[in-house]
């Protein structure tokens, strides 16, 4: 009743009352429309054309407009609209291309008023002018829109879209003369009703047909469009170029959109196929509908708000032959059923956890040990008092559990990743090298492991017999030692655990404090952080510096030794292999020019020691015939499992790659795959794209190997005409110019080409880098703020966020990348500098 009271005030005395109700129609409905006074609704379809009055608790059939003995196609309606000025006036669009108007004031049974047979194809939409009584607009499959003056027999003007079938036409509510038309090819056009010769504006709104559009009833420049590409987009038309301001991704193609009255950001949608529900979205919150009506059993074909100023009553017609009135309070709210929780590990071992506020507070009270060894920080969404009531339920809390600063450094990981040698040399050398690397970083246990591996798998072949005896002895001595490592809980090499132990005591008291002093900050700009000083500083200050460091490292040492591996491979034509049957990856190994050279190398490497072993084993059979290398395999396996268990997946994967076939059989595929994906994930978060690509290439897992074969297409625009380049190579089809000119030196770029995804201009890597040091604008002079775009991107994606969806295309391997060149092709990274080897 309280709600009712509010409704009453909103409508100035004209209160709507009612409940959720429905009635059966005789046939599927195609469209519905309401009368201005919200008391009657018209339902139209192929075999139905009726008017119902909306009573308190039922629909009552008032009038059947399908009269006459013979069924006529003129009654087969694709669309219907009720005039909002004159309650006797209706218009329908027939599937055979006829536009019919109906006058309910006629005394005869047949209310048909006028018939316009000007369209050659099905008419998809009719629309009355919001303020002009006699003006009717129609849009048809034949690509024309026609404007009719109901006082005349023929159309007064015809608008040719010059593109394709018109799916929707809507008069603007603000501008008397403007209307919008949407097309099957994805375009939206704006027309001036006085100028039938040419559209005022046109832009591409969707990929595929745009089925519907709706002008915002209040915010005057807004136009919502819905398309077959399952998107609802809101465009701001006030600027010179239509700007997409909101985008909602639904689960099926969008058949209708209707702004909710009195709610600025709400919009109702229904879909063309598969999905039968009606959703009401808050466009600012595009991932979950704010309300949902689930009554229909088949697709909903028409939705309309019952009254222009009432946001609580929604009418809908459906293919399941029912007409519904939905009441907002009966809507299901998916948000109630959703448990918004998020959990993410940062690179430095920090853990962020977001959940509903209620859950958090009760949890941390009950289980105080959560804060035992870490600092929780609480962020809470500050409730904006100006926001509407729907947001109340959406407050959530974010806790971040940090490890402390000095131990949080992951430098060792980066260094190791960069310096490890994984292939290309004999096993013994690889092991020695890696052992040295580990030792250099004070990771003695790992170094020891590498040494042991060398002894186990290859020392027989390479060292003299004296050495052999010695090392064998050493090896057997280490065996029990290893076991003891396994039993012990604290490994000497892995600092993190012990770190935590150390910090346990001092942190505890602080934690409790932290728990209670959960600070309120606005989530949208995470600037005010209170409560925890040191960790917060670290979070905001140190990270950026580090990022810079990493970034610099990434391209300042352009990987002298790396280039030997990856760049030449890049010069090979990759295409034929990608076109090839993806499941026939096995064949790749056979191809002479396959880019998996290093894979082959790994194989040859793996061959030599085995041979040499067999040679030696004869001469040394006296000593060692009881201990073939296989003997150690279970132990090595346990070692790897141990490292992986400890979180040092790097060591596990590196050993796996170096040993190759010797150990591969011992560990099941799934575990290996899991290790590989984790390691690759880590590498990518540290932006070590080259190394991650090398790991992918060297891996023996099918699933991993395929990673850099997927999404290898790079869609690019011509830098001259800004159109997508469809041709192979760098000559643009349209303007016949070379698209890979360097914007700085104006020469054709051969080799690495870096470009801005915002404006398509680019050039030599060195030139562009140098340019951007001094200027943030595009060197081509197009005025685009390339640097800003890039900068915004990289700072908006801190590594603690979810991993970028990076398919790491092989074409990018070996390119020292500023920004995120590995995210090629992923549509989410529009704005970033982009690199590609040519």
């Amino acid at each position: 009743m309280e709600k009712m009271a509010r409704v009453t005030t909103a409508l100035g005395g004209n209160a709507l009352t009612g409940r959720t109700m429905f009635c059966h129609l005789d046939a599927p409905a195609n469209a519905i429309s309401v009368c201005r006074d919200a008391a009657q609704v018209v339902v139209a379809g192929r075999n139905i054309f009726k008017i119902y009055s909306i009573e308190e608790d039922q629909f009552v059939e008032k009038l059947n407009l399908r009269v006459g003995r013979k069924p006529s196609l003129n009654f087969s309606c694709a669309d219907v609209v009720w005039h909002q000025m004159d309650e006797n006036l209706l218009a329908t669009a027939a599937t055979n291309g006829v536009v019919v108007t109906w006058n309910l004031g006629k005394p005869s049974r047949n209310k048909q008023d006028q018939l316009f047979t000007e369209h050659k194809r099905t008419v998809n939409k009719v629309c009355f002018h919001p303020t002009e009584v006699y003006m009717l607009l129609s849009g048809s499959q034949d690509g024309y829109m026609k404007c009719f003056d109901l006082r005349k027999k023929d159309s007064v003007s015809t608008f040719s879209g010059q593109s394709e079938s018109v799916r929707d036409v809507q008069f603007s509510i603000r501008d008397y003369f403007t209307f919008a038309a949407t097309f099957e090819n994805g375009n939206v056009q704006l027309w001036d009703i006085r100028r039938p010769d040419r559209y005022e504006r046109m832009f591409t709104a969707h990929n595929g047909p745009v089925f519907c559009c709706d002008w915002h009833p209040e915010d005057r420049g807004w136009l919502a469009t819905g398309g077959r590409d399952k998107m609802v987009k809101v465009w701001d038309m006030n600027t010179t170029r239509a700007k997409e301001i909101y985008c909602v991704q639904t689960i099926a193609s969008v058949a209708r959109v209707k702004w909710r009255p009195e709610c600025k950001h709400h919009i109702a949608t229904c879909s063309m196929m598969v999905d039968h529900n009606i959703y009401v979205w808050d466009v600012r919150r595009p991932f979950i509908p704010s309300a949902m009506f689930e009554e229909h059993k088949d697709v909903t074909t028409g939705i309309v708000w019952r009254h222009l100023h009432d946001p609580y009553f929604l009418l809908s017609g459906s293919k399941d032959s029912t007409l519904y009135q939905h009441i907002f309070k009966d809507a299901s709210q998916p948000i109630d059923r959703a448990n918004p929780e998020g959990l993410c590990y940062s690179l430095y071992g920090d853990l962020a956890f977001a959940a509903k506020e209620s859950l958090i507070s009760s949890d941390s009270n009950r289980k105080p040990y959560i804060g035992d060894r870490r600092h929780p920080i609480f962020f809470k969404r500050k409730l904006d008092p100006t926001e509407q009531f729907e947001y109340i339920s959406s407050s959530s809390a974010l806790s971040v559990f940090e490890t402390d600063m000095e131990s949080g450094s992951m430098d060792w990981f980066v260094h190791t990743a960069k310096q490890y040698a994984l292939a290309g040399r004999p096993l013994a050398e690889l092991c020695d090298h890696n052992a040295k690397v580990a030792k250099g970083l004070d990771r003695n246990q790992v170094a020891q492991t590498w040494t042991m591996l060398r002894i186990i798998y290859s020392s027989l072949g390479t060292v003299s017999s004296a050495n052999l005896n010695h090392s064998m002895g050493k090896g057997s001595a280490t065996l029990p030692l290893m076991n003891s490592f396994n039993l012990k809980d604290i490994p000497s090499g892995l600092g993190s655990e012990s770190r935590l132990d150390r910090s346990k005591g001092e942190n505890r008291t602080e934690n409790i404090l932290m728990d209670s002093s959960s600070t309120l900050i606005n989530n949208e700009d995470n600037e005010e952080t209170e409560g925890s000083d040191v960790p917060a500083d670290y979070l905001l200050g140190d990270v950026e510096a580090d990022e810079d460091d990493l970034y610099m490292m990434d391209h300042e040492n352009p990987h002298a030794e790396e280039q030997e591996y990856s760049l030449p491979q890049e010069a090979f034509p990759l295409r034929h292999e990608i076109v090839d049957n993806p499941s026939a990856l096995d064949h790749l190994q056979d191809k002479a020019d396959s880019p998996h050279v290093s894979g082959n190398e790994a194989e040859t490497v793996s061959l030599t020691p085995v041979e040499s072993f067999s040679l030696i084993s004869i001469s040394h059979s006296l000593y060692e015939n009881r201990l073939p290398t296989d003997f150690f395999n279970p132990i090595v396996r346990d070692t790897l499992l141990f490292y992986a268990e400890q979180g040092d997946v790097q060591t596990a994967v590196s050993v796996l790659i170096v040993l190759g076939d010797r150990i591969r059989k011992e560990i099941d595929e799934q575990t290996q795959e899991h290790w590989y994906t984790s390691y690759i994930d880590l590498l990518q978060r540290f932006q070590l794209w080259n190394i991650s690509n090398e790991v992918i290439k060297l891996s023996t897992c099918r699933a991993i190997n395929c990673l850099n074969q997927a999404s290898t297409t790079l869609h690019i625009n011509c830098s001259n005409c800004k159109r997508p380049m469809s041709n192979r190579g760098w000559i643009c089809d349209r303007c016949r110019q070379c698209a890979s000119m360097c914007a700085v030196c104006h020469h054709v770029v051969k080799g690495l080409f870096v470009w801005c995804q915002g404006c398509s201009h680019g050039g030599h890597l060195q030139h562009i880098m140098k340019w951007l040091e001094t200027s943030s604008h595009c060197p081509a002079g197009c005025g685009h703020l390339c640097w800003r775009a890039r900068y915004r991107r990289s700072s908006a994606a801190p590594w603690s966020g979810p991993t970028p969806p990076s398919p790491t295309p092989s074409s990018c391997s070996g390119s020292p990348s500023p920004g995120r060149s590995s995210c090629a092709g992923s549509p989410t990274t529009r704005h970033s500098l982009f690199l590609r080897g040519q």
Partner: protein
Amino acid sequence: MEEREGEVRWDGLCSRDAATRAAALDTIGQAVLRRSETIAPVAAVPPARAADGLLVPAARDGLSEVLARLLMLSKRCPFPDVREKSEAILSGVQELGIRIPRPLGHGPSRFIPEKETIQVGNEDTMMHTLFADSFAALGRLDNVTLVMVFHPQYLESFLKTQHYLLQMDGPLPLHYRHYIGIMAAARHQCSYLVNLHVNDFLHVGGDPKWLNGLENAPQKLQNLGELNKMLAHRPWLITKEHIEQLLKTEENSWSLAELIHAVVLLTHYHSLASFTFGCGISPEIDCEGGHTFRPPSVSNYCICDITNGYHGVDEIHASPTGSIPSTESVCEVEALMEKMKQLQECRDEEEASQEEMATRFEREKRESMFVCSSEDEESAATRDVSRHFEDTSYGYKDFSRHGMHVPTFRAQDYSWEDHGYSLVNRLYPDVGQLLDEKFHIAYNLTYNTMATHKDVDTSMLRRAIWNYIHCMFGIRYDDYDYGEINQLLDRSFKVYIKTVVCTPEKTTKRMYDSFWRQFEHSEKVHVNLLLVEARMQAELLYALRAITRYMT
């Protein structure tokens, strides 16, 4: 051991890199010559020689297949280096005293004189790219491609779609895909497609046993047989119960995504069979019936020609444009254009009543049933093909004889653009987009020419053809006046359309020649593209509607 050595690897040839191809060719050349040498001296003594003293390689040693393949490469490879080299290898083999095969038939199509098709080696850059793509993907350049290349824009989209369906990500395993292709092509006894896909099927590791008939295939594929049959001949009978049955039989059930994939494949191959027969595609050179080891004098036609009732294709080899320019057919084009003009103009004046429109559709639909070729109806199915499907009697003609009623399907209620696309794309991502593009290109393809006339708006004619095909399947467009069809399509043309779409195996060269005598071959191929796509869309619409109904 020798067997191993003699094995020939072809994969290297598909490379775009000339050096790789050269290397691959060298290996092939060596292997072939080595094998030829092993046979040559042994067989030099016995009387197994043919009349001209050359040795016929025995089928079992596989050498003949290799030679046939080389022959194909020497004729059909888009890369000139490969063509020359394979020819050199072949002549090398011949010098060893072994007979080499020679191609049978004349060019890629039996209906179109070879000189009027695009010759490999003479193509322009765009065509060459397409050829190279096709060759790289399939390892061959098939005759379908060579005929379709009249319309490169369409061909590109066609190849992309086919490649995606057969080789890219999808719910069905590769050998299933080819087997479904075989099932579909076999419905129309299209030995060309069956042969092609039998090879591919074996190549991707399919079980040869399955090829002995559908009953030897897994139950899951057998279950698909019914749907295949209905889709090919009476798609309007498909109901949601059929779909339910496929999806609900416990252990051998299909998933929705798999089913969509299968349906797209089935419709693709049904309509491709239409194209194959409609354009009289010759057997591939390296397939059975595409080449012979016999010397040219003995016989002049291949097995397929016999079974399809062509005897001596050469006899009437005159091009339809040149041969009999009877006065009647000269006017044909002008008359047609005149009619189109009239229709365009009268459009607004003439007001056919609604009932009239409805009856026109019904009449056209009914008449389309009786449009039947006077040709001999019994065509002998080649032994190879018939085993892939049971029930040969079940065909489109059955239904027309019994005068069954085709229910009307309203295009406005379930259209490809609005509904079909969404469903396909939801369950088999990207394919909806590819098909959409293909339909679009086929429907809108025009060069604004008709025979010798330029700047003609052919949209009306294309729409008539498209809608006529849909009409045969009972699909009705509310906004179309079916009277136009009668005006624009004459009887011989209707016979051709009807035959190609409904019973493609009965298409003859006479039918092909007798419609639109003034038109170019490329225009007739264009018509075939319309037939192919319209048929595919019609079948898809019925199948997808049933699936949608099942889902709701």
